[in-house]
């Protein structure tokens, strides 16, 4: 058997089922792996080792009694620190929530718990999910397991680095403009941004409500499908969650892509991507064709306005969503002579510079006299992007692109240049604006720098099954993800 820490969730589930491994053994191995690596990588903000071991013991007892809660009962899991976890400190990477211990569980957490997944801990992230490198965390740096001088991407950088280094087989992340897919790409992982409303947002600390979605970060496509199935579905606590049942994702994932029509975005070709990225993505298109898909060019002219529109809508929503952090009821408080000074000081000291920048941007965009020119205009662009995409799907079944224009960049390289940082998400942001589903799947290592490159496949709303089928076919044919070459040199 392979080393436990490199086993996929599917493999671990099989080993639990056959009795080859116990949940306790698995959990202990992952804890040991984390003990060995996390000082260097800085992925966890809060570890819940005792709880994980206790939950693992319970899972083993259930299996013994033939009462396993699910196929994955006993396969451990970790969460981006943006998910509310009852009784476990939750900060969303911000100092303003230092010491906050929530009284309830996010729906994603509750459903994962119901499936019997022991909780290993809470993972680092850019503060309130604002960033593409995890360098905006209010607490610590997270390093890319492929090169510890480089960023893991962000904002779900802690989740990506933990999964990529074998500290956990899978983790929950969130994606507002690329925060799952871009770190997945930079760490050679599978990362999924489901259709808006596919997974409940209840208990996700909101950044931009109309864009946020929870999704898995895993080492294989099947693991992503499996984790998504565990939490997906309507939730009456989230009125934006889509009513009705969700399609099966694991079942039929190996159905192949013969005859599938895949579009490549005309406006994306050579849009500032690294040559190494372009080379690998072109190879990926060729592979998809070889597997029976047809590749054709689609034009999405509104996509070039995605970043500007996103950087009005997301800050506008965040300026309102983050107003509740005022020192009155929970989290950090910096005392002042009166309520205004207390709240001002708490926010001045509690929020980091990027969060403040976005609150100011958003406040301005919503101000009387500017609303129409900024927020209103951005919403129009959003409508245009959505209708452009809908038109493209009359011709094709999926749209393919690079996930990120570059491989992992050096720590500190873009921290003083917000615009360069924002452009990390140029290929991912339009998907959030339109609400569609997308996946990033490892496409190999760049010939330029030997760092991972990810292929993005964008599906129609609620067409996750087609997306998973294509990603699975590609992954299996490439044979990279679970090979030694697909693992970081740790």
């Amino acid at each position, binding site marked *: 058997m392979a080393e436990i820490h490199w086993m996929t969730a599917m493999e671990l589930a099989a080993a639990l089922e056959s009795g080859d491994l116990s949940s306790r053994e698995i959990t202990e191995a992952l804890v040991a792996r984390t003990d060995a690596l996390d000082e260097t990588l800085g992925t966890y903000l809060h570890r819940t080792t005792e709880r994980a071991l206790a939950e693992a013991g319970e899972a083993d007892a259930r299996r013994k009694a033939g009462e396993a809660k699910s196929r994955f009962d006993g396969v451990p899991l970790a969460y981006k620190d943006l998910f*509310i976890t009852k009784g476990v400190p939750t900060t969303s990477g911000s100092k303003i929530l230092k010491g906050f211990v929530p009284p309830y569980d996010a729906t994603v957490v509750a459903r994962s718990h119901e499936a019997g997944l022991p909780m290993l801990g809470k993972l680092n992230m850019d503060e309130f999910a604002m960033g593409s490198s995890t360098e905006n965390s209010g607490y610590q740096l997270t390093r890319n397991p492929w090169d510890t001088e480089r960023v893991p991407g962000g904002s779900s950088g802690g989740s990506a680095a933990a999964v990529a280094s074998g500290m956990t087989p899978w983790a929950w992340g969130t994606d507002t403009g690329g925060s799952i897919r871009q770190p997945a790409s930079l760490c050679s992982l599978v990362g999924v941004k489901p259709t808006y409303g596919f997974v409940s947002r209840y208990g996700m600390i909101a950044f931009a409500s109309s864009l946020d979605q929870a999704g898995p970060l895993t080492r294989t496509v099947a693991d992503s499908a499996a984790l998504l199935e565990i939490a997906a579905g309507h939730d009456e606590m989230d009125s934006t969650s889509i009513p009705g049942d969700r399609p099966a994702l694991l079942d039929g994932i190996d159905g192949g892509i013969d005859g599938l029509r895949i579009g490549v975005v005309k406006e994306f070709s050579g849009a500032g991507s690294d040559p190494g990225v372009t080379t690998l993505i072109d190879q990926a298109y060729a592979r998809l064709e070889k597997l029976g898909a047809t590749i054709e060019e689609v034009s999405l002219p509104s996509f070039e306005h995605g970043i500007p529109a996103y950087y009005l809508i997301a800050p506008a929503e965040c300026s309102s969503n983050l107003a*509740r952090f005022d020192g009155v009821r929970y989290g950090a408080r910096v005392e002042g002579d009166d309520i205004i000074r207390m709240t001002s000081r708490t926010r001045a000291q509690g929020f980091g510079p990027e969060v403040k920048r976005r609150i100011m941007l958003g406040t301005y965009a919503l101000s*009387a006299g500017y609303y129409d020119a900024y927020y209103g205009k951005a919403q129009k662009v959003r409508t245009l992007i959505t209708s452009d995409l809908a038109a493209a799907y009359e011709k094709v079944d999926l749209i393919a692109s690079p996930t990120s224009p570059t491989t992992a960049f050096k720590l500190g390289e873009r921290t003083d240049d917000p615009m360069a940082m924002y452009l990390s998400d140029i290929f991912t942001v339009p998907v959030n604006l339109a609400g569609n589903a997308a996946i990033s799947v490892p496409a190999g290592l760049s010939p330029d720098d030997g760092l991972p490159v990810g292929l993005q496949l964008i599906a129609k709303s609620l067409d996750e099954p087609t997306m998973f089928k294509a990603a699975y076919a590609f992954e299996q044919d490439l044979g990279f993800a679970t090979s030694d070459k697909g693992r970081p040199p740790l």
Partner: protein
Amino acid sequence: MTDTQTDIYTTTVGLEIHVELATASKMFCGCRVAFGGDPNTRTCPVCLGMPGSLPVPNEKAIEFTMKIGLALGCTIAEHSLFHRKNYFYPDMPKNYQISQYDSPLCYGGAVEVVGDWGTHPVGITRVHLEEDTGKSIHIGGGGRIADSDYSLEDFNRAGTPLVEIVSEPDIRSADEARAFVTELRATIEALGVSDVRMEEGSMRVDANVSVRRKGEKEYGAKVEVKNMNSIRSVIRALEHEEERQRKALDAGEILIQETRHFDEKSGVTSSMRTKEYAFDYRYFPEPDMVPFEPSAGWVDSIKDSLPESPTTRRERFAREYGLGVKDVGVLTSSLKAAQWFEAAAGAYEGDAKKVVNWIIADLFGLLNEAGLELWESKISPVQLAALVTLIDSGKISGKQAKLVLQGMFESGDDPEKVIAEKGLEQVSDEGAIEAVVDDVIAENAEAAGKVRSGNLGTIGFLVGQVMKKSKGKANPQMVNELLRRKLS
């Protein structure tokens, strides 16, 4: 107010009325809606604005709002949505209020107010739905946030569904405002969607008041008056504010747009903030909820379920009972009063006007003295009807009935019991009366002679003597007839 002032100035008032809905649960979570209770005992992550929590709209609250809108003659929007109103205040858990902005659920209605001026329509601009805030209790420094030592927050009320009703500036006096608020309260009470208790804050009234010289086209500076906690304080505050603005204009002052606070004790308004501090609420569509489109079927079923409106009831009372405007106004001032009257009128077989007269002329006097409302009286509608029936049948005289009513009011007993206890039964037994009449004729031969010789004016004296002798119990009509017969 002097006559000259009414000649010179015109007053314009628009009202903004907030009504807490009596739904079982809050607007966006499952917490129970109730008044009072230990602080922060009816809260959850949603109404506390905990990170990660999300609002889920209460369908019943939307239905109740549409009920109010339809009862006020509004159109229901085909497409409506919630907006966020952003401002910082410690009793607002999210530091934004989920409210409605440019797409209110109901718009364009009207209410008729009735009074000495006749009937006057007041337009309803909009009726929208939002969430209530928590309550701040400022400790020290005179109870104001600015100079208090510290503040306590109670979030039990936070998230209670709140309906805002905005009137057009069609109200022309404090008395019309009173009539409007009374009308609105009766309408909403009849719908059963709110307690509408101003004292408990389940109905709150803010007023925009402006005074201008007659003939001027532009409205005067708009002054918002807050903190009026009863209908009486609405009248007091508006009369004071009207007077204040007139005096200021008389003195050549320029009035400014501002918000003023009404002080219940002194009866005076004082400035809270001027427009320089006007907030920019940065309204934008609430992204945590999807827009909603009430189906025509839903709207129609609500329309069909509406109870009789006060206007319709007034028309019906006038028609069915032949009552004048004033009586109708008194009897329809609240649903409970109207129901009480109809129960009494229904139990009475004669002309309902007689019942009305007993309510308005006599019962109200007793109620006012005791500080009670009609429906709080110990007398039941059926008992009042029985009393009037007893008068009709000659069992008691009208004069005696007043005493009986007094007795019923005190004890709650049936009129028959009160009559028996007080020995007030009227004697209508002809033999018994005849004996007394004969005695009186014998004792007053001179007067009897006068009547016999045609001087009928003297008969009244003899009737009086009979009544005196019978201790008021003899049926006066029978006494009169017997005297006439015997002395003809």
